[in-house]
C-alpha cells in the first residue's frame, strides 16, 4: 500500500519539478529572476478572493476534463469538446433568454438544451466513425471549424439581441435562470466571504458530475463495457459488447458532459452567449484530463492546478515578468506529467509482476519459475 502511494505521488512531483526547472530557465534567458516570478505568483494566490476565483475557474475545467476523459477511457479521442460546448451554450442561452420559468425549471431547461445540443453534435462524429470508419480525431477537429461558423452565423443572424449594437450576443437570461451562489450557504456554516467575492454554485454541479462519473465508470455494467472496450476491444467484443453502439453512446455522452461544462460561465457569471463567452474551454479540458490521468480525483487536482497557475499569472505583469511564463509552466507541466506518468506506471507494473511471481513461487517451492508473461 505504501508503495502504491509512493507511485501515485512520484509522477506528479517529478513533473512539477521538471516544469519549474524549465520555466526558470526560460525566465533566466530573458533576464528575469525566477525567484521574483514565483514570489509574485505565490502572492497572487494569497487571498480568499484569489482562492475563490481559482475554484470558480476550475469547476468548468473539471467538468470538461471529465467529458474528455470519458472518451479516453474508451479509446475515443473527443477533441471536439470545444465546439460541442459552444454550440450547446449558444442554443441554451438563446432558449433560456426566450422563456421565463420558475427558477429550478428554468435552470434545468437551459442545462438540458446545452447537453442535448452538444451531445447531438458529438453524435455527428460518432455516426461518421461507425458508418464510414472516419477517425474521430480528424472529424472532431474539422467539426470544430464548422461549429465556429455555425455559431457565428446563428448568433449574428438569428439569435442576437438586437438592442445591442457593438457586439453580437444573445439576450440576457432572466435571474430565474441563474445559478445561485454559495455565499449564503457558506454563511450558514459560519464562513463569511468578503463582499464582492462570489463562490459560484456551479461547483456543486461539478462535484456531482465527478461523483456521477466515478459511479458510472466503476459501478455500472455500462462503465465496465466502456472500460473493457478501451482496454482490449477484441476481448470486449467476444464478451458481448457491441462496438458500434458503444462508440455512439460514449461520444454522445462525452459531448453532453462537455455541454454541461459550458454552463458554469453561462449560469453563474455571464448569462448570455456572446463575444465574452470563454473559448478554448475544450482544449483545457483535454489538458486537464491528461494531467489527471482520466481519474475523477486526478482531474480535480489537475483542474485546480491549471486554474491556480492562471490565477497566479495575473500578478506577474505588475512584477515586470512576462505573464506568458504561466503558459510555459502549464505546457511543460503537461508534457512532463505525461512522460512521468508513463515511466512510473511501467516501473510499478514491473514491480507488481515481480511481486506476484515471488509470492506464487513461495507457495510451492520446487516448481519451475513461471514466465513473466507468456
Amino acid at each position, binding site marked *: 500500500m505504501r508503495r502504491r502511494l509512493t507511485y501515485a505521488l512520484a509522477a506528479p512531483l517529478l513533473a512539477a519539478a521538471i516544469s519549474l526547472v524549465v520555466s526558470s530557465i526560460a525566465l533566466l534567458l530573458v533576464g528575469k529572476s525566477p525567484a521574483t516570478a514565483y514570489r509574485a505568483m505565490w502572492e497572487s494566490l494569497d487571498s480568499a478572493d484569489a482562492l475563490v476565483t481559482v475554484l470558480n475557474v476550475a469547476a468548468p475545467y473539471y467538468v470538461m476534463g471529465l467529458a474528455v476523459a470519458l472518451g479516453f477511457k474508451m479509446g475515443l479521442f473527443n477533441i471536439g469538446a470545444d465546439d460541442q460546448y459552444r454550440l450547446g451554450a449558444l442554443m441554451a442561452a438563446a432558449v433560456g433568454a426566450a422563456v421565463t420559468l420558475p427558477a429550478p425549471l428554468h435552470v434545468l431547461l437551459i442545462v438540458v438544451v446545452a447537453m442535448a445540443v452538444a451531445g447531438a453534435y458529438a453524435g455527428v462524429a460518432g455516426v461518421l466513425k461507425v458508418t464510414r470508419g472516419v477517425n474521430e480525431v480528424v472529424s472532431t477537429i474539422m467539426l470544430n471549424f464548422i461549429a465556429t461558423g455555425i455559431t457565428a452565423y446563428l448568433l449574428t443572424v438569428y439569435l442576437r439581441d438586437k438592442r445591442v449594437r457593438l457586439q453580437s450576443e444573445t439576450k440576457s437570461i432572466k435571474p430565474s435562470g441563474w445559478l445561485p451562489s454559495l455565499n449564503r450557504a457558506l454563511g450558514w456554516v459560519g464562513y463569511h466571504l468578503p463582499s464582492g467575492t462570489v463562490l459560484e454554485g456551479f461547483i456543486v454541479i461539478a462535484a456531482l458530475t465527478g461523483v456521477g462519473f466515478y459511479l458510472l465508470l466503476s459501478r455500472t455494467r455500462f462503465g465496465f463495457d466502456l472500460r473493457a472496450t478501451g482496454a482490449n476491444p477484441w476481448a470486449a467484443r467476444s464478451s*458481448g459488447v457491441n462496438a458500434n453502439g458503444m462508440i455512439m453512446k460514449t461520444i454522445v455522452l462525452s459531448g453532453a458532459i462537455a455541454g454541461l461544462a459550458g454552463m458554469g460561465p453561462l449560469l453563474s457569471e455571464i448569462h448570455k452567449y456572446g463575444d465574452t463567452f470563454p473559448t478554448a474551454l475544450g482544449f483545457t479540458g483535454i489538458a486537464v484530463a491528461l494531467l489527471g490521468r482520466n481519474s475523477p480525483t486526478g482531474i480535480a487536482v489537475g483542474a485546480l492546478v491549471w486554474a491556480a497557475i492562471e490565477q497566479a499569472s495575473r500578478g506577474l505583469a505588475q512584477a515586470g515578468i512576462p505573464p506568458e511564463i504561466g503558459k510555459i509552466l502549464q505546457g511543460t507541466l503537461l508534457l512532463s506529467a505525461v512522460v512521468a506518468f508513463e515511466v512510473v506506471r511501467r516501473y510499478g507494473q514491473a514491480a507488481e509482476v515481480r511481486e506476484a511471481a515471488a509470492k506464487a513461487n513461495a507457495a510451492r517451492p520446487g516448481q519451475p519459475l513461471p514466465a513473466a508473461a507468456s
Partner: protein
Amino acid sequence: MSVTTAVGAPAIELRDIVKRFPGVVANDGVNLRVTPGTIHAIVGENGAGKSTLMKTLYGAHRPDEGQILVDGVEQTFRSPRDAIAVGIGMVFQHFMLADNLTVWENIVLGDEPGRSFRIDVGAARRRIRELSERYGLDVDPDALVGGLGVGAKQRAEILKVLYRDARIVILDEPTTVLVPQEVDRLFDNLRGLVADGVTILFISHKLDEVLKVADAITVVRMGRTVAEVAPSDVTARDLAELMVGSELPKPDTRGSTVTDVVALRLDDLVVKGEGDRLLLDHVSFEIHEGEILGVAGVEGNGQSELIEAILGVLPIDQGTVAMAGRDLARVSTRARREMGLGYIPQDRQQDGLLLAAPLWENVMLGHQTQVPFARGQWLDRQGALRRTRVVIQEFDVRTPGPDVAALALSGGNQQKLIVGREMTASPRVLIAAHPTRGVDVGAQAEIWEDLRIARADGLAVLLVSADLEELIGLSDSLAVFLRGRLVATLDPSTVSPADLGSYMTGAREAASST
C-alpha cells in the same frame, strides 16, 4: 565471414541445433542438410519446431547449441542483417508490405540505392523489372501494393529477397493464403529460381503440395529431425505417420455421456475470404449435450473463423448456426453469451483478458450482465470477488489475491483463471480453444477432469486443439479441418496416426465426410 566455399558442400547445414524458451525446448537437436540448387521442404505439425528453426537460420535469434553452416562455412548471425549478407532471404507467412506504397518502394525500403538524400529510382526499378522478367514473377514495380492480390503480394515479397541477392530463399507456409491455381503458379516460379541455382527452403504442413514440388523432405517432430527422405521414396501416408508419430495417445475409455439432444448445430456454413477463397467451406456438424467434439487440423485451416462465426463476431455469408434449436442469425454476441455460450479463447492475452485490470474484473469478462457479477445495471463487486475467490481456489490459480492485475500472473495461471471463469459460469455450450496452452502438467490433468465432469452433466464442448493427447483423450468425435472444409469425422478410439495425419495434411481426402 570467409568468402571461400567448400566444394560440394551443402548450401545450408544445421548441426544439432538446440533452442530453449522458458518452459519448452523448441528445437532439441535438429539436423538439416540442403543441397544447393534444390527445393527442400521441411514438414511438421504446429509446435514441431519448424518456425523456430527457420528463425534461427534467418538470424532472428541465436541457437543455444549447435552450428549453422552456409556453403560449408560456419556462420554466426547476430541479426537478420548478417543472414541477408550471406545470401539468405526469408518470405514470411504474414506479408510485411506497406499498402500505400508501390512495389518498388516496398522492395527498396531499408536498402535504398543512391547516395545521401537522393534515391536512385531508375536503378531500383530497372533491377526489379529485370529480376521480375528473369524469373517470370510478372510484378509491375509501379503498382500500388494495396491494390494487388494475395498471389501478387507474395511474388513481391519474393522479389524483395531476390533484390537483396538472396541465393537461399526460405518460404514459411507460402501456400496457406493461396488458392490452388496460385499454388501451381508459385511452384512454377520456384522451379524457375532453382534452375538458376537458387536454393529454396519451404516450410509446410500440406503434404500433397510438398510431394509435388520438393526435391528433398525433412520431417520434424517435437523439436527433432525424425527423417530425411526423397519424395520418390515415400507416400503421403508414410510422411503423415512420420509427422504425427507411430503411436497416438490412448483415449479415455470411460462410458459415453453423449445424449441425443442437439446443443449446437452448424448447417452449410460459408464464410468468404479475399478473392475466391472460402475461409469456411460449407461446414456442417452437430454437437450434442454431453459430447465433446474435437477439431483437429493444423492452425490456419478455418478454426479461428469457425469459432468467430459461432461467437457472432464474424459475419456469415451463407448457412446457419443454431444453439439449443434456436437460429442465432439475429442474435447478438452478448445474447449468445447470456444463453450459455462459454468461450476459452486461443490467445488469452489478445482475446481473453484485460491485462491491466484486477482479476475480479477479468472474471467478469463475458459474464458482466449476469448474476453474480451484476444486479440490474449495477456491478456487484462483492459477488465478483466471491466468485473470483472460488475460481482461484478450485482452479489453483497462483496469485497473491483477487485484486492483483492480470498481467502480474504467469501465462499458465492466466489460463487457469480463464478456464475457471468459463467453467464456473454454468455454460451450456463451451468453445474451448487450446484450453491448456501453457498450463503445467498437473493442472492440465485437473482441467481435463473438470471438462469430463461438466460433460457428464450435459455440457457440449467444441474443442480446438493442437495437442493430440488432449484431442484424443477428451473428444467423443474428431472433426478434421483442412482449408476451411470439414474433411473427415473420425472416431478417436480407433483412428490410426497415419489416417489422422493424412486427413490433417491433405495427403488423403475422405471418401465421405459426415
